[in-house]
């Protein structure tokens, strides 16, 4: 059941790329509010962590989070966000992946998805630390990354989970998941 089929690969990468497109539109919105509302922009930052956990909740196979995250970052790099987004995509995807692995890829609920987002957020913090975005006064550092963590949990946990629920209602997930009533029990 955990074996990857070609369909899974293509769908995972497609999900990553659709997120890349959404992130592009999101980014325009974000650039607009960036100078006016610095706190607001951290609250919307969770969007960047959604792709990995979302793909895992959809495909439910080891490696889905990392692959989708890389695909999304790849698209972002192609449309001109700079090659460094590949690093962010890789690290954020990897951190989410590690969390799902810690639960042996068997938990698909809100809390686990949200925690995966928080792990991605931690990954982005570590990269920011090296890049230099984190050279802030202590209070500003706490506000910035505190808000980002909350946002990560809300976007990857609550939002991603409920969008997946809605997708399940459209029956599109039956195309890619082997159906077993046992799996549906985990969701309730």
């Amino acid at each position, binding site marked *: 059941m955990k074996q990857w089929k070609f369909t899974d690969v*293509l769908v995972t990468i*497609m999900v*990553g790329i659709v997120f890349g*497109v959404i992130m592009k539109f999101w980014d325009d919105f974000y650039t607009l509010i960036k100078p006016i509302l610095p706190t607001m922009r951290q609250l919307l930052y969770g969007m960047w962590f959604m792709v990995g956990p979302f793909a895992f909740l*959809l495909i439910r196979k080891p490696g889905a989070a990392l692959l989708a995250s890389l695909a999304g970052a790849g698209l972002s790099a192609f449309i001109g966000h700079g090659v460094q987004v*590949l690093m962010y995509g890789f690290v954020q995807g990897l951190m989410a992946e590690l969390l799902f692995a810690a639960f042996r890829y068997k938990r698909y609920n809100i809390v686990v998805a949200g925690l995966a987002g928080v792990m991605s957020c931690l990954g982005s913090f570590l990269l920011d630390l090296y890049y230099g975005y984190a050279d802030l006064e202590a209070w500003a550092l706490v506000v910035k990354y505190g808000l980002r963590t909350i946002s990560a949990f809300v976007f990857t946990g609550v939002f991603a989970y409920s969008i997946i629920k809605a997708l399940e209602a459209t029956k599109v997930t039956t*195309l890619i998941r082997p159906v077993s009533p046992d799996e549906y029990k985990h969701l309730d």
Partner: protein
Amino acid sequence: MLEWFAPQRITWLHRANPAWKGLLMFLVMLVLFFSRDLAFIVVIACWYGGFLFVFSGFARRKLLLLCLPFALTFLSSSLTLALFGKGEHVLWQWGIVKISEESVRSGLIIGMKSLAIGLVSLVLLLTTRPVLLFYALMQQFRFPARFAYSFLAALRLVPIVIEEWQTRTHALKVRGIAFSKGVKGVYERLKLYSVPLFAQSIRRAQRMAVAMEAKQFRMNQPRTYYYETSYSKIDAYLTAYVCGSLLVALLMPEPFR
């Protein structure tokens, strides 16, 4: 739109092996990413800025336009750090805003870093065709064909995704949907857009995968390639250029620092 991104003339840079060029530019990016040396970053930015304007084969006007977003990033990211960055030697303070020597420096560093990485990325993007990049990755770096072809196939669907996005915007407008304010509004927007977008994309991707397998695409079999890529003398020149740029930037004499 895509024609706009076609170069005026094909230079030697376009003929370098795409995967090798990608690797070199990625390495330069990595060095920049972890560097905290302002002089080093400035020198690298100049090297690759010059490289872009002389060898990319694009008109100066277009290049300036393409560099504009990076200039904006420079401003916004350096400003935040300069105003709220940590530092001891305070120059000016007003409420929560505190400008110090260190914060101005870290603001400058991050701004220059974004600019330099942007220029390095542009050198790669403007002189490389994505299709050839993936073909070269498969042939020279043994990148798995299942990921490369999936990415290329999904890339072709991007215009459809954007079109669907616009259709959705129009549909919501016609139906007179009013979004709530605040976080709830963000959620409503996200859900109303992403559910149909993903449902359609997943269906399309699944159909495409089935079609590819029906045409005998196999994940783990040796294969031949429609576009053949290889190394040439140009790759040696490019490698020498990149090494040279890093060395010069590292060995900058003291007075210039």
